[in-house]
């Protein structure tokens, strides 16, 4: 009982489809593509959309996707077999059209579809109720005393039997490809080999000693004992010693700047690769002579295993690295390589592409535009911050506040951390400093400690609406993801106040812990929301302490992979101007280095 079966090209054109009901399945299939394939989760077997369950197969040789949908309550055991069968049948029948990528031929599978479906159903019935084994067939009948005695022997035998079945990676193929590449190089007298030049560059670069700004060479900058003539000496003691850093004013105006990496070297690599691609056009005619090979799982796995380890050393959570590699494997399987391409480099490229895709936002992220929109509606734009303790919620809140003020927004900060001692005072200090830089644009809404955070936030939003503030930044208490009462309080704050943006602040230092934090936060928000329909989840990430991790940028990938949400801000230092936006391509370059 399949409701829908469709064959479509990866470029979106439906080649053939069968629908048993008049229902529109387009939205379900589109959701499958967006949620699963585009987010690097292709390894998932089944995707649920409303009442439907969808399963799919990708054919990478011809860039096709086979998808089928059925009612979720039906436990269909034959779907996988059916998809495999029909994929083979379709490929055989229209091989010529598919090889020339002609997606507009008259594809017709009516007969085959019915036949294969019937066969698969029969197969499913057979397997559904496994026959009971008779005693003679069972393992127990073979368990004689003798068998029990030389148990070790049999164990070995079993292992020996298993051994050849395991896919062994054949290194020869790669060797052949390498030799072919060498041959071309000799023929074209092309000195700069795209794959050989990088190592020499890397040697030169090496690891440089990090120079800290105040690394202890001199104590000049640290000696604050002599009275500063510029500061006003009178009254107030330590509190008033703050000197407004007026040099910062104006630096954060406009959009948030991207993080720059010194990636000249990898750029060169890119150019070299492009050049190499061009030369392959000259040798295109050899393609027909030297047979093409389709990748099998056995070719892909060892390379991906190495890449997976590489990702983990770059601080990507192990779980995330595995699932990313699994979905890349599914994307690679069956793909036909060009004669002069090497497996490893192709897989690397595919993985980087997938990583860029994970990091690219899946929706529009233009905060200032949305703020303008809210201003027109006469209400403030509310941003709430959440996260575990000590990740830098308040610090990043102050930075974001500075950025918003630079862009002519009036900001109200709501001190909803009524829990930790000194939290309100910290915000008060920030507000005083910020007010020095841009007078009259920022205010603090505080109600002391021990009160209900959701209530304070609601009051603050009301106050902001009355006094025409553009943005309300809600600072919440840091909480560990397993602290049930505090998570409940956070969910309440979100449900009551409905912030326009719920930002999760996470450290860039975090490794495997990122998975747990984000899933638990999301789960708590979903569990405690008590609302009909889809609950309000985290919809943006602030990555803090990004300056401390050098090139171990894996946390960025882990976090946006788990939530599927973009990284909106990146904190890169201690001062108000150290706020940046994430550049996916630069991060992936650093990651794959």
């Amino acid at each position: 009982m399949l409701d829908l079966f469709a064959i479509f090209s990866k470029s979106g054109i439906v080649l053939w489809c069968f629908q048993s009901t008049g229902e529109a399945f387009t939205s379900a299939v589109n959701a499958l593509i967006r949620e699963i394939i585009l987010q690097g989760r292709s390894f998932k077997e089944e995707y649920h959309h409303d009442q439907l369950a969808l399963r799919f197969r990708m054919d990478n040789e011809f860039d096709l996707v086979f998808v089928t949908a059925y009612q979720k309550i039906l436990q269909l055991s034959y779907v996988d077999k059916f998809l495999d069968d029909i994929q083979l049948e379709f490929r055989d029948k229209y091989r010529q059209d598919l090889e020339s990528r002609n997606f507009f031929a008259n594809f017709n599978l009516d007969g085959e579809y019915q036949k294969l479906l019937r066969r698969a159903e029969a197969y499913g019935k057979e397997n559904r109720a496994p026959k009971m084994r008779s005693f003679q067939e069972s393992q127990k009948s073979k368990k004689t005393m003798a068998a029990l005695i030389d148990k070790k022997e049999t164990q070995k035998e079993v292992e020996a039997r298993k051994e050849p079945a395991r896919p062994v990676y054949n290194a020869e193929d790669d060797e052949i490809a390498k030799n072919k590449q060498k041959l071309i190089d000799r023929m074209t007298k092309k000195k700069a080999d795209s794959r050989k030049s990088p190592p020499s560059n890397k040697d030169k670069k090496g690891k440089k000693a990090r120079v800290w700004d105040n690394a202890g060479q001199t104590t000049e900058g640290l000696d604050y004992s002599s009275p500063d003539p510029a500061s006003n000496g009178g009254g107030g003691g330590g509190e008033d010693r703050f000197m407004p850093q007026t040099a910062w004013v104006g630096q954060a105006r406009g959009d948030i700047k991207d993080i720059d990496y010194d990636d000249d070297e990898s750029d060169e690599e890119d150019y070299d690769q492009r050049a190499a691609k061009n030369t392959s056009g000259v040798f295109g005619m050899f393609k027909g002579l030297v047979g093409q090979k389709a990748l099998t799982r056995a070719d892909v796995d060892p390379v991906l295993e190495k890449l997976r380890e590489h990702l983990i050393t770059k601080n990507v959570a192990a779980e995330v690295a595995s699932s990313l590699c699994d979905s890349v494997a599914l994307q690679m399987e069956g793909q036909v390589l060009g004669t002069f391409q090497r497996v490893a480099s192709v897989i690397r490229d595919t993985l980087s592409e997938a990583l860029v895709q994970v990091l690219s936002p899946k929706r529009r992220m233009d905060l200032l535009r949305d703020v303008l929109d809210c201003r027109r509606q006469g209400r403030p734009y509310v941003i709430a911050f959440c996260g575990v303790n000590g990740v830098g919620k308040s610090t990043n809140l102050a930075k974001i506040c500075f950025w918003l003020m630079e862009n002519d927004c009036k900001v109200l900060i709501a001190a909803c951390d009524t829990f930790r001692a000194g939290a309100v005072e910290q915000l008060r200090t920030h507000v005083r400093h910020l007010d020095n830089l841009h007078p009259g644009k920022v205010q603090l809404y505080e109600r002391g400690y021990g009160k209900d955070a959701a209530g304070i936030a609601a009051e603050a939003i009301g106050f902001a609406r009355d006094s025409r503030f553009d943005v309300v930044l809600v600072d919440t208490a840091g909480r560990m993801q397993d602290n049930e009462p505090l998570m409940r309080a956070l969910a309440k704050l979100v449900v009551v106040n409905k912030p326009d943006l719920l930002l999760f602040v996470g450290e860039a230092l975090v490794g495997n812990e990122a998975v747990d934090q984000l899933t638990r936060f999301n789960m708590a928000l979903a569990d405690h929301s008590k609302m009909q329909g889809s609950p309000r989840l985290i919809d943006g990430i602030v990555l803090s302490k990004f300056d401390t991790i050098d090139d171990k940028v894996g946390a960025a990938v882990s976090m946006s992979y788990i939530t599927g949400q973009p990284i909106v801000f990146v904190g890169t230092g201690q001062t108000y101007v150290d706020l940046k936006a994430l550049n996916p391509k630069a991060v992936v370059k650093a990651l794959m280095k």
Partner: protein
Amino acid sequence: MDVLGSEATVLSVVLALLIVVITVVFVLRRSRGGRSNVLICGISNAGKTVLYAHLCSGKTVQTYVSIKENQGQFEHPSSGKVVKLVDIPGNERQRMNVFDNFKSSARALIFVVDSISFMSELKDVAEYAYYVLSDPDTSRLPVLIACNKQDDSMAKSITVIKSNLEKELNLLRKTQSSKLVTTEGAQLGRVLGSARKDFEFADLSQTVDFVEFSSTADRTPVLDWLSKL
């Protein structure tokens, strides 16, 4: 002897000149050949793939979200002119990256807009339009903003779409202005349109045309525009 010698030098000079001319022509051809694609872009569900399929094969096809670009050739029915078409996926995660891959080979752009859901998608449409129009690689190319699905009675007309897009792009110029300075590569602050007044399509360095069409019913406006290329 002298006469013969001079004739030989003249001949060799002529030959050398000929070779130079031929190589120059060849190189020019190559470089122009580098810019041969007409890119079909626009946000998801605007009708890009349907338009592409129509132009390439004349068939109406059912489509899902594209995760890969379509490349094909379009032969103009009346003039017989052949144009290479590239249909860029419209989903948010890919559209910018794929556009970046193809922008250097672009010869013209067709920006497809869904006229029915235009008002609700205005911000997304404008953001992508801003990205496409402000790219220095495509700053001299002709652009067609094709308002699709005009056979529906709820479709917005050209004038509404144009004025709303202009208003929205004017706002976007403010909110995204410093992006021009800091992205990779040394592109220096290119302000979209004229900085002194509100944004208008007429002020752009590229020629922008607007047409109403429907990829399932009436595609002649797009065909006419393609034949003018």
